[in-house]
């Protein structure tokens, strides 16, 4: 053993290595990605059979795009996701600036309230929101969906923004103030450009969280409005079809793109950091 160590010092002496851990990691990746990849492959299957491969085709995508229910649901989803993520990002920017590097009484309480949507199990938020909207008399529909989404998007937008702000030294905006910029100009010309990667990252996360939400939307949507996940769920109830595979694959593609972009923006911010 000792001779072996001397001959191959780097590999054999890596005390951190454990046999089987690499295999487990690969198994884990196959487990995480296998189902997604399989459903994506089958969405291009020419024939309806789910066991036989009948050749490549985009028919199911064409069919999904032509489906009027899906079209309307996609539009609703997009409107809600864009509005909810914009609203929550604006709120989160304000809150993150207020919380930045300042200790004040009640700071921890404020943080708990902002992260509350992450702590409360989704099913509880869902039924509570339903009970609330019915009691207060807010009609169930696109408005109630938007309200509910804005709430749970706030922490998702807040976390990347505040972590970005923590990396910006206060002397940047102090310098701006010394050069006679007023508070607003210091914000628009100095602080905001510096924190922008965090804002973008938070916005994208809020956007996909809203686009993907099923449980809360399911309860507060009412009969009038349907989002994409609700439409997919409705279709699944009647049986799995290649059309579902196609829409699912599309939505997966959108989410994966946004997460990857958000991650890359986050990395970029780490490198540019002052």
């Amino acid at each position, binding site marked *: 053993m000792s001779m072996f160590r001397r001959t191959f010092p780097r590999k054999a002496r890596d005390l951190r290595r454990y046999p089987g851990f690499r295999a487990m990691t690969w198994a884990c990746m196959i487990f995480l990605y296998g189902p997604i990849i399989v459903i994506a492959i089958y969405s291009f299957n020419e024939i309806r059979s789910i066991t036989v491969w009948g050749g490549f085709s985009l028919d199911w995508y064409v069919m999904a795009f032509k489906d009027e229910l899906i079209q309307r649901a996609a539009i609703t989803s997009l409107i809600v996701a864009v509005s909810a993520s914009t609203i929550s990002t604006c709120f989160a920017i304000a809150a993150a600036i207020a919380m930045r590097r300042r200790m004040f009484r009640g700071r921890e309480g404020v943080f708990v309230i902002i992260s509350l949507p992450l702590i409360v199990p989704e099913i509880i938020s869902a*039924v509570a929101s339903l009970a609330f909207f019915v009691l207060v008399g807010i009609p169930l529909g696109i408005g109630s969906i938007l309200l509910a989404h804005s*709430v749970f998007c706030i922490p998702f937008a807040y976390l990347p923004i505040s972590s970005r702000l923590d990396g910006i030294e206060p002397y940047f905006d102090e310098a701006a103030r010394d050069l006679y910029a007023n508070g607003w100009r210091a914000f628009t010309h100095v602080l905001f450009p510096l924190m922008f990667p965090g804002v973008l990252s938070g916005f994208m996360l809020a956007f996909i969280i809203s686009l993907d939400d*099923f449980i809360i939307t399911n309860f507060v949507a009412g009969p009038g409005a349907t989002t994409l996940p609700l439409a997919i769920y409705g279709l699944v109830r009647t049986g799995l079809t290649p059309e579902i595979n196609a829409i699912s694959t599309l939505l997966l593609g959108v989410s994966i793109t946004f997460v990857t972009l958000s991650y890359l923006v986050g990395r970029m911010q780490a490198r540019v950091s002052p």
Partner: protein
Amino acid sequence: MADVVQPALPESTKRRERAQRLLRATLLMPSLLTITAFLVAPLFIILVYSFLTPGTYGGVIWEFTPNAYIQFLFERDIFDDSLVFSTAYLGIYGRSFIQAVVSTSICFLIGFPTAYFIATRPVRQKNMWVLLVTVPYWVNLLIRTIAMLFLIRDEGPLNHTLIWLGAISDPIHIAYTYYGVGIGLVYSYLPFMILPIYATIERFDFRLVEAARDLYADRWTTMWRIILPLCRPGIVAGSLLVFIPSLGSFIAPDLLGGGKNLMIGNLIALQFQGSRNWPFGSAAAMILMTVVLVTLVFYARQQSRAKVRLH
């Protein structure tokens, strides 16, 4: 804080501080108001609802009664109106609890080696692996569960491939069973276990492992006595992040359990959709919320105790 320590501040500083406090309140207001009005208030409402009488077509009648909570433990006999002890609902809670514990354990068994392997890679590879684990964490849970259902159902690609390979002659029934739900939960929340453990191992001082090996501990003793105990904070955090959503999960048992393997989340949902007993649903939600809060408080206390021990 500052105004307590320094009693005699000049007037201008005081004014500036007041202005700053006002600005801070204004900036915090939109987020706090939104969350308070549309989440805290609703939670309070279902707390109240859990003590009211159910309306005939959903909703509530404003009459106080603890019936919703009594209904958990007792069934009212139709003939003589007496209360008979019943385990139907307790059973759902018990089953959900076991299901959540088992999936958390499996997540740990898969997640720890994965997190460890990723954390000990060179930086470049590390970032790629972390991205690979992070992506499923954000991707639509409903669609991921549908994909899993598609894969493991009786006539799905998994069974088909196994039969084609000759490994089995009849499809294995996984979908719509207890095991199906378990697989769905592990699949849903596995990244929540890997990421916090990864974060602790990344900060781990591997000179300790060297020291252990120098003192003739073998690989697995080092793992058991040195690495695992020191990675406890990450393991506990990961377990909580898997356990809490598993306990209240709705999608996995709904799609993969096929209506036979109800969990707490489905019980709550049913009361607000199908059988329409809002007070009972609210009580079920409140009990779940209590379990979650107790778990979190327990965790927070452990954390602070661990901090004291370190100092």
